[in-house]
């Protein structure tokens, strides 16, 4: 399978590349790159408007990609899938279009302390504009959500409960179905940030019981700039347009316009056609491996890495000790995350150092930042051994 990812087979600063920054973005298999090439070499045209052959092919491939995404996340209909640039744009769409209409002054938007800035800042902007209030489910010391506080926080004033499926810096896997059920019981709409889960484990919107689900293609083998928003049909129907422009209208006069039904209502302008096609190719590739198999490989690597980390002195690992995603945030005594990340890079090891778009969470743990290793199905235990050697060397170098 490594041969599907030619990028992995290279030296960086004179050492074999070990790519452990998969929570930031994953590498793309040949099948995805080939799908893009094939589209641009044979079928490229604009969608939904040309009356010529290439436009028909492009439209067909684009809409087939939508159906593929719907099937992948268990949506009942392709009409529930809006193509976006990724998780961030998906959440902003919900905040501005749905939130702009349905959230009123004094309403509460419930989030958690572990949200990525992309599932925090859009709600801050909305709350500021509307006069709504933000509330947060606290994070326990072990990196799990303080669910004992949920009943107290999830009151009828809560209009929306938005939370992440898998934390991008703690690796925590949240109990999405349980959270959605509790939110529904008080009449709150739910949004799940599936950026770190969609490419790593089975995700089924009906089983999870969420109203919205957002994810990015680039964190699951697809091109950057591809992604989707799932919205339950009834809620998406009630949501007014977001961006205005071509493609999303039925008829336009100088004074006013009427708009298409979802999902096209939310896709103004020429979409990222190749991105959607690449996303469908990535889904084919991932399903070829099997998401359960990916989740098992993630778990095996994570547990192996945790065991090996235990050998290192002065190591503090964030997040739960039990079941978790393939994301390990850690701090090493005497070595700042940025020095460590620079050191590792010079050994060919790609880690991420910093706040991981989680400034409030870092503050919660009293840390300026962490170093993060995040794995995917193409990573190996031998690469983890290599990381451990490099970390040992870094401690000797800096301490």
């Amino acid at each position, binding site marked *: 399978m490594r041969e599907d990812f030619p990028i992995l087979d290279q030296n960086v*600063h004179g050492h074999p590349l070990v790519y452990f920054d998969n929570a930031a973005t994953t590498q793309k298999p040949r099948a995805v790159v080939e799908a893009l090439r094939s589209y641009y070499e044979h079928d490229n045209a604009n969608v939904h408007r040309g009356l010529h052959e290439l436009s028909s092919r492009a439209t067909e491939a684009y809409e087939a990609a939508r159906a593929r995404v719907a099937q992948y996340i268990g949506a009942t209909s392709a009409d529930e899938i809006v193509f976006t640039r990724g998780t961030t744009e998906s959440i902003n769409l919900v905040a501005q279009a749905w939130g702009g209409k349905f959230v009123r002054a004094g309403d509460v938007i419930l989030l958690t302390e572990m949200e990525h800035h992309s599932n925090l800042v859009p709600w801050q902007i909305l709350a500021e504009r509307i006069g709504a209030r933000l509330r947060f489910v606290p994070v326990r010391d072990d990196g799990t959500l303080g669910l004992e506080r949920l009943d107290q926080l999830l009151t009828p004033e809560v209009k929306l409960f938005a939370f992440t499926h898998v934390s991008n810096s703690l690796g925590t896997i949240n109990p999405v179905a349980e959270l959605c059920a509790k939110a529904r019981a008080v009449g709150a709409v739910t949004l799940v940030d599936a950026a770190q889960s969609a490419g790593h484990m089975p995700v089924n919107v009906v089983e999870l019981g969420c109203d919205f689900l957002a994810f990015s293609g680039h964190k699951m083998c697809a091109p950057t700039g591809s992604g989707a928003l799932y919205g339950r049909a009834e809620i998406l129907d009630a949501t007014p347009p977001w961006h205005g422009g071509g493609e999303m209208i039925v008829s336009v006069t100088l004074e006013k316009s009427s708009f298409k039904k979802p999902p096209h209502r939310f896709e103004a302008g020429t979409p990222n056609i190749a991105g959607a096609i690449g996303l469908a190719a990535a889904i084919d590739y991932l399903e070829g491996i099997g998401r359960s198999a990916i989740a098992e490989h993630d778990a095996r690597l994570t547990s192996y890495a945790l065991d090996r980390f235990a050998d290192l002195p002065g190591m503090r690992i964030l997040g739960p000790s039990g079941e978790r995603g393939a994301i390990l945030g850690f701090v090493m005594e005497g070595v700042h*995350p*940025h*020095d460590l990340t620079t*050191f590792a890079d*010079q050994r060919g090891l790609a880690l991420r150092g910093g*706040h991981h778009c989680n400034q409030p969470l*870092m503050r919660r743990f009293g*840390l*300026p930042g962490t170093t993060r290793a995040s794995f995917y199905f193409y990573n190996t235990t031998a690469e983890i051994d290599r990381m451990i050697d490099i970390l040992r060397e870094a401690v000797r170098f800096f301490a």
Partner: protein
Amino acid sequence: MSTELEELYQEVILDHSRRPRNFGTLPNADVLVHGDNPACGDEIHLGVHFSPDGKLEEIKFSGQGCAISQASASMMTLKLKGKTRAEAVDLSRAFHDLVTGSFAESSETASDRDLSRRSLGEGGKPKLGDLQFLQGVRKFPQRVKCAMLAWRAVEQALAQNAGEASVTTEAES
């Protein structure tokens, strides 16, 4: 050991980061500047006491950050003690040029790498002395902010003259 790493983390730099000089609070500070680098969480609290004739008589810092930001701050305090405002401003400019590589790129030949013997005093340029050990930062553009944090704070202290201020390496709107 890769050459770039050795150039970035010279022993002098590691020594300053492990045992920063002039680290602590300055009770008689005329100006206190809180500096931060939100992109990486580095923080510095810089205190400066000016002499009656306007020189930087005492300068101390505290805070936390990577080896580069700590070493840069430590070496800066040694360099700036006793300097006039104008000298401090010139040094800050010269240091910025050094770490961004916009200074004397052409002179960076193998023989020039012996930094301890290299003088920047010619042509009216202020002498950076030990600060030249931070030259390796220019190969790591994402670390320039780490090296500049303390200097941004001291520039603010000079502009401010008295009282307290904050400064950040990220421009906010």
